[in-house]
């Protein structure tokens, strides 16, 4: 029995109809493509009237297949599948072809665009005829959630979920949660003290009955699929028994070994070999850094052990592993700071009084290495003049093309702090000042009023080579003032480099581990940049905070909360539908060659030792087709992408070249004329 296909060409207002002759395409489909029973064009197919059109035709005309030529299936495939289902047609017998993204938006010539639209409609009809009825399966959703990264984003997400009554595992790599925000003194634009707003949330996490905080830990392995992930977490040895430790800190006091703290203090201060990053650390159990600890180096010392009142020190402690099951994952792994040494002309590491933004944050912090005093590298001299350089490693094609989005505001914050705490003059060297969020422009105006100077020009060089009187003993910032149109040399005592935010060094590996992709720059890729900013292409894996792209604290917190809300939605639904467009291995064909075994990006393929064949776990399979293409025996078929469907589609695309309708490549050759 031949199929009855309904074809619907959407105008998308003028988006499509402005370029493609939609009426002509509809006429072509109705008159020239075999088995097309109904062909219509309509202003907005996605409107309820458009959908009703389809439903009515299915009911009245008995359509058995539906093709909608409109926008990308990413946007409206669900809409039209649902319309089909409403009218009793299996939703997978509906196919969308994109004549907007792939035709009207990319082709200017109307005639060419119309021809291409016809070819795409013909292809869609040919393939949809061969579609099979598919049924999605349902799996339960485990109510536990894994949050990776305990910066402000992860903290927010964890608290939202825990407050809603759902168990959360919060895994943080460092000894304490808090992330970058814990290092700051004040936060723009309101200048509230970072610790004052962060530490209450941190202690909430530490004591929340629904939050299992796993600090100094990392995700070792994850398997499973949406709703049903199995996660193995490695708890790194702290050498401190968490049960026994009361966090009194006597061990830290007594430890004789002092080392530079490159992480929390950004190299500006010291810590002991047994340490916690900062006094309000959560959890507050210390850790022993085995690389510097005298006992681990030389086998003697044990001062901490001797003085610990609860015998909590355990030099024999080993890494331990915890296996958990969770339904969803939120990745909030944050960022690294650009290494300012990569811009040698700014002299960081060579010129003592060139500081990075993070060093300056620590300097301003009352509990930081200078107890909040702004001083030169000698630790005593107050600067009389300070230059702040914007866009160090950002908006720079040699490093990162993107804007780090928070540096202008941080620079203004720094200007304010310098002027508040010292008598120094502050000059900012900027390309553009970007202050686009709520209260930001007002903050900029405030700094203008407070007397901060602004030079519009990217600093070319920072040097200590004096050329003019007044430059001796100073750092000279050389820049073209593009507003004045002339070169300027500004001598200062101190320079602060506003370094770019960069993806974490291991972001790609983490992405791979969780089966999600990264952008060119290395930020985690969201499902849709506008409409689905915290979901990813892998169901059950969400991203939030700077890990997804540069942003400030308010935006990070909003994303953390958004991701938590999405997860809550999944948990309350209780079950989740699994797409049936998956790969299947046909046992009788599979030879067990194992070519496919290592290929699946979602680890969906296993080898059944008893039957000596490979097997695809449909719940894990995303239907990407990698294995389908690789199987040399063609034992694997991909639903909706089998050879017949693909060749029919190609045949349709080439309707013009190989003669209209039923063309089904690859055709066996015609008989040659007898010789």
């Amino acid at each position, binding site marked *: 029995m031949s199929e009855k296909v309904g074809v619907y060409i959407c105008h998308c207002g003028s988006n499509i109809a402005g370029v493609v002759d939609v009426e002509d395409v509809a006429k072509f489909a109705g008159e020239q493509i075999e088995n097309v029973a109904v062909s219509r064009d309509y202003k907005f197919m996605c409107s309820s009237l458009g959908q009703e059109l389809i439903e009515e035709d299915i009911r009245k005309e008995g359509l058995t297949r539906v093709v909608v030529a409109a926008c990308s299936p990413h946007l409206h495939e669900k809409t039209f599948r649902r319309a089909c289902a409403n009218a009793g047609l299996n939703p997978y017998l509906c196919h969308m072809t994109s004549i907007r993204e792939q035709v009207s938006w990319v082709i200017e010539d109307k005639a060419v665009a119309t021809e291409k639209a016809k070819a795409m409609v013909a292809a869609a009809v040919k393939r949809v005829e061969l579609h099979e009825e598919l049924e999605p399966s349902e799996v339960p959703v485990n109510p536990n959630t894994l949050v990776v990264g305990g910066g402000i984003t992860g903290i927010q997400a964890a608290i939202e979920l825990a407050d809603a009554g759902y168990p959360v595992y919060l895994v943080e790599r460092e000894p304490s949660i808090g992330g970058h925000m814990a290092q700051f003194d004040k936060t723009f634009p309101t200048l509230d003290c970072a610790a004052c707003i962060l530490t209450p949330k941190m202690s909430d996490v530490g004591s929340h009955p629904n939050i299992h905080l796993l600090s100094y830990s990392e995700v070792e392995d994850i398997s499973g699929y949406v709703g049903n992930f199995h996660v193995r977490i490695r708890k790194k040895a702290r050498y401190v028994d968490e049960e026994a430790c009361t966090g009194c800190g006597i061990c830290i006091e007594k430890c004789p070994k002092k080392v530079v703290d490159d992480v929390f203090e950004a190299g500006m201060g010291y810590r002991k070999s047994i340490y916690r990053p900062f006094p309000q650390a959560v959890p507050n159990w210390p850790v022993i850094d085995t690389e510097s600890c005298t006992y681990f180096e030389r086998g003697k010392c044990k001062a901490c052990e001797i003085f610990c009142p609860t015998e909590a020190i355990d030099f024999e402690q080993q890494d331990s592993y915890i296996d958990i099951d969770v339904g969803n994952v939120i990745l909030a792994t944050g960022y690294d700071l650009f290494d300012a040494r990569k811009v040698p002309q700014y002299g960081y590491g060579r010129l003592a009084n060139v500081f990075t933004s993070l060093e300056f944050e620590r300097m301003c912090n009352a509990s930081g290495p200078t107890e909040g005093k702004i001083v030169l590298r000698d630790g005593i001299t107050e600067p009389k003049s300070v230059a702040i350089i914007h866009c160090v490693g950002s908006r720079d094609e040699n490093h990162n093309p993107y804007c780090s989005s928070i540096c202008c505001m941080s620079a203004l914050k720094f200007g304010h702090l310098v002027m508040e705490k010292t008598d120094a003059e502050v000059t900012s060297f900027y390309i553009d000042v970007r202050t686009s969020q709520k209260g930001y422009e007002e903050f900029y105006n405030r700094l203008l009023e407070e007397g901060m100077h602004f030079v519009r020009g990217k600093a070319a060089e920072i040097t200590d080579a004096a050329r003019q009187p007044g430059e001796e003993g100073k750092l000279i910032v050389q820049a073209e003032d593009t507003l004045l149109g002339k070169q300027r040399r500004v001598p200062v005592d101190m320079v602060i480099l506003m370094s770019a935010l960069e993806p974490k060094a291991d972001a790609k590996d983490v992405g791979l581990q969780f089966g999600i992709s990264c952008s060119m720059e290395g930020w985690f890729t969201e499902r849709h940049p506008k409409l689905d900013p915290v979901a990813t292409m892998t169901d059950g894996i969400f991203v939030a905070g700077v890990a997804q792209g540069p942003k400030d604290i308010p935006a990070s917190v909003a994303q953390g909360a958004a991701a938590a809300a999405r997860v809550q939605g999944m948990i309350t639904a209780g079950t989740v539908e699994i797409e049936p467009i998956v790969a299947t291995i046909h046992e*009788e*064909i*599979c*030879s*067990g*060659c*194992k*070519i*496919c*075994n*290592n*290929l699946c990006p979602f680890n969906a393929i296993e080898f059944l030792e008893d039957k000596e064949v490979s097997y695809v776990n449909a719940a894990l399979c995303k239907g990407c087709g*990698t294995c389908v*293409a*690789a*199987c*040399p*025996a*063609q*034992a694997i078929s991909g639903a909706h992408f089998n*050879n017949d469907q693909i*060749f029919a589609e190609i045949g349709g695309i080439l309707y013009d070249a190989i003669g209209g309708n039923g063309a089904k490549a*690859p055709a*066996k*050759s015609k*008989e*040659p004329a*007898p*010789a």
Partner: protein
Amino acid sequence: MSAAKKGKLANYWAASCGGCEIAVLGINEKILDVAEAFDIVLWPVAVDAKVHSIEKMADKSIDLCLFNGAIRTSEQEYMARLLRRKSKVMVAFGSCAHEGCIPALANVSNREEIFQTAYHDTPSTDNPNGVRPQTETEVEEGKLYLPLFYDTVKTLDQTVEVDYYLPGCPPEPERIWDAIVAILEGKLPAPGSVIGATTTVCDDCPRTREEKKIKEFKRTWEIIPDPDICLLEQGLVCCGIATRAGCGALCPTVGSPCIGCYGPNEGVEDFGARMMTALASVIDSDDPEEIERIIQEGIPDPIGTFYRFSLAASQLRRKTLEGLDPSGASA
């Protein structure tokens, strides 16, 4: 099997090495059963029969025709059409008829180039008068005719309709016998089917297999393979992964990689494409330059490696004639 009414059997030999004709004898004494069941009306290698006697037979009077060889000349095409007309069941017997096999590797060339090489350029050729085969030649006694040599080698089913395919170079005796029994007992699969297994050589291969990661492809002369481990995992381009089972994994069992003579598995459109995507999937490198090197050094002859048996039947079929020296009529 009943021999109440004897059937008629024809074997024919077109562009092939002749091995398929002999292979029929591989069924040993069972050939007597065949002779009991069938009158053999044509079998160039074993039975003296004339074309004109076939021409005189009524259409569809031959019960079974085992046609081996590809179609390279006009005469072969004539015989294919003739036998098709006279036969009830037409079997493409062996790799040449099935998918072109070695003769079809000439599809990377054309008649002009082949003649140039064969009648002029090879060092052992001495042809001072530049003589070349002609379709017609006047001699004292009259006109002589030779078949036309085509530009393109075709499979049997690119020439006439084929009912069944028996793959292999040559088909294994057990499979031939299975097919004959199936035909005699009328237990044939759907017309157009390949008579054989639906899995690949790996299924019969005794070697142990693991997940594959290939850093380097090896030529057979470069290593003495470990006797127990999958040859592909040792870097040898073993086509067993893509080749239809039926031979019993003869070659890999004795340490020689499968070269693919049983052709693609059921449903596969293009054997070479399957091999290439499979191997490309397991090359152990992410660096395009290294991948390029691994392929260049390890697989110097991709067509000869991946399309050794199937070029004519593949989606490539031949090198485009535009790129070649044009010559007279094309096939």
